[in-house]
C-alpha cells in the first residue's frame, strides 16, 4: 500500500512537470510553484519507497562475508545489525520530529509553506521502518532460540 502511494506520487510528479513545460511554451505562463512542489513530492517518494525496500530486503549491501557464515552465527550478526539500525532509527525519528516541529512557523521556498512538510518524512518513514525492523528482529531471535524455525527465517 505504501508502494502504491509512492508510485502514485511519482506519477503526480511526471504530470506536474509535463504540465509546467506545456504551460511555459504553449500557454506562455510558467508555473512558479510546480518545481518546488514536485521536488517535495520527490522527497516523500524516496522516504516512502525506502520503507518498502527495507521490508523487501532489497537495500544494497555487501554480503560477501556474512554469506559464508554458518547459519547460527549469521543469525547473531543479523540481530546485531537489526539492533544497530534500530539505534540509528531512534535518533532519526527523535531529531526528525524535533526539526519538523521547530520549523512549523517558518516559511520556505516559492510555496511559502513550512519545511516541516518535508521534515516530517523523517519521523514517519523512520517509524514505519522501525516497525518492520521489530518484526525482523522477532523472526531472527525466534530462529535463534528454536532451531526448528531457523529454516523459515531469512
Amino acid at each position, binding site marked *: 500500500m505504501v508502494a502504491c502511494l509512492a*508510485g502514485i506520487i511519482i506519477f503526480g510528479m*511526471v504530470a506536474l512537470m509535463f504540465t*509546467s*513545460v506545456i504551460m511555459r511554451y504553449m500557454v506562455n505562463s510558467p508555473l512558479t510553484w510546480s518545481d518546488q512542489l514536485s521536488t517535495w513530492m520527490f*522527497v516523500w517518494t524516496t522516504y516512502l*519507497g525506502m520503507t518498502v525496500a527495507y521490508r523487501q530486503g532489497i537495500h544494497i549491501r555487501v554480503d560477501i*562475508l556474512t554469506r559464508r557464515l554458518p547459519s547460527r552465527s549469521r543469525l547473531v550478526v543479523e540481530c546485531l545489525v537489526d539492533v544497530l*539500525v534500530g539505534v540509528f532509527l531512534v535518533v532519526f525519528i527523535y531529531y526528525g520530529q524535533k526539526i519538523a516541529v521547530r520549523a512549523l512557523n517558518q516559511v520556505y521556498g516559492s510555496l511559502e509553506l513550512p519545511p516541516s512538510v*518535508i521534515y516530517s518524512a*523523517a519521523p514517519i518513514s523512520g517509524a514505519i521502518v522501525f516497525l518492520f525492523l521489530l518484526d525482523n528482529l522477532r523472526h531472527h531471535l525466534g530462529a535463534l532460540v528454536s532451531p526448528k524455525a531457523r529454516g523459515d527465517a531469512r
Partner: protein
Amino acid sequence: MTGVVTILALSFFGLLLLGMPLAFVLGLTSLVVFLFQGNIPLDIIPQRMILGSESFALMAVPFFILAGNLMNTGGITKRIVIFANVLMGRLRGGLALADVAASMIFAGVSGSAVADATGVGSVLIPAMKKEGYHADFAAGLTAAASVCGPLIPPSIPMVVYGIIAEVSIGAMFLAGAIPGFMLGFGLMGLAYYYSVKRDYPRYGTSSLRQIWREFLRASLALIMPGIILGGIFSGIFTVTESAAVAVVYSLMLSVFIYKEIHLGDILPILKQSAIDTAVVMFIIAVAALFGWMMAITRLPQLVTQWMFSLHLGALAMLMILNVFLLIVGCFMEAISAMIILIPLLLVPCQALGIDRIHLGAVIVFNLMLGLLTPPVGLCLYITGRIADVSLEEVSKAAFPFLLVGIGVLILITIFPALTVWLPRAWLG
C-alpha cells in the same frame, strides 16, 4: 584529527562487512563520528538526509527509471530490436550485431544499463539461442552492450556525478557520447570476429523495402532519442523535464498507439519504479549527510596531501585511480561508490590539473565496467538469468568484451579530448 579518521574508517568498514544496508552504514558512521566529536547537534542527521533528497536535478533519476520500465513493457524496445535485426541481418552474426545496435539506440532514451540489459536481453537472447548462438555468448555480449546505456546520453550516473561535482549535467552527457559509441562499435567488431570464427548464422537478408517498412513501423520509437536529446541540448527543456517528457511519450505510445499496456498495468510499473528509485535515492540522501560529516573531519584534505606526497603526474594518477576503481567496481554498486569516492577525489584531482568533466567520464566509464565483473556484476546476473546460464559462464563469456571496455577506458584516460572535446565544442 587522525583519531576521528580511524573511528570513521573502523565504523564504516566494520558495519559494511557485517552486511548492514549501505545507506544505514553511512548514517550510523556519521552518528558515531558526531558523538565522538561531541559538539555537533544531532538535528543535522535528519536535516541533511531530507535536504539531500530535495533536488530538482535528481528527479531525472526516477523519471529515467520509469521511462525504461515503460519502454520494456510497452513494446517500444521490441520495435527497436526488430528494426536493428533487419538492419544488421544480412551480415554474419546478424543477431549479435543487432543486439549491440539495439542497445545503442535504446541508450539514447534510457540512462541505465539495467533497463538496457533487461529490455534488449529479454527479446534478443532467446532469439539468439534459437538461431544456434551459444547461450553464454548471447548473455555476455548483451551484458557488455548494455553498458552503452549509461554512456550514450542520457545517463543516470552522469546526472549523479554532475550534481556531486557541480558540473553541468548536459556537459557530462556529451562527455559520455564518444566513449559510448567507441565501446559500441568496438563490441560490434569483436562480436563480428566471433561470429565468423564460430560460423554463427546470418539473420536473413532483407530488401531495402523491408528495412524501410520496419523503419516506419519503429519510427515513433526511433525518434525518442531525438526528442529527448534535442530537447536538452537545444535548451528547450532541462534534463529533468526531458526525462518527464520521455515518460509521457513512452506512456502515450504504449497505451494509445501500440496498445500493449492497459491502464491496469500502469500501477504495478509505477510501484516498481518507486521502489527502484528509493533504493538509489535513499543512499544519495544519506550520502549528503555522510559528505557533510567527511568535510568536518577534513578527510578530503588528508587524501589530497597523501596523493601529493606520491609526486605523480596527472596521467599516472588517473591510471592508478583506474586500477583502484576497477577493483572497487567488482565489489560495489556504481552509484554508491561514486557518492562515497567523488568528494574525496575531486580536490586532489583538480589540484593536479585534471579536468572535472574528463575525471567524471573516466570514473563513470570505469564503474560501469563493474557491471560486467563478478561478484557484484548486476548486468551479468540479469542476462545470465535470461539466458539460463550460470554466473561463472556469463562472466567468462563477457570477459573478452570487458577487455574491449578496458581498452576504451585506457584511451579516454590518455586522450582527454575524447571526452571533453564534444561538451566544449557544443556548449562552449
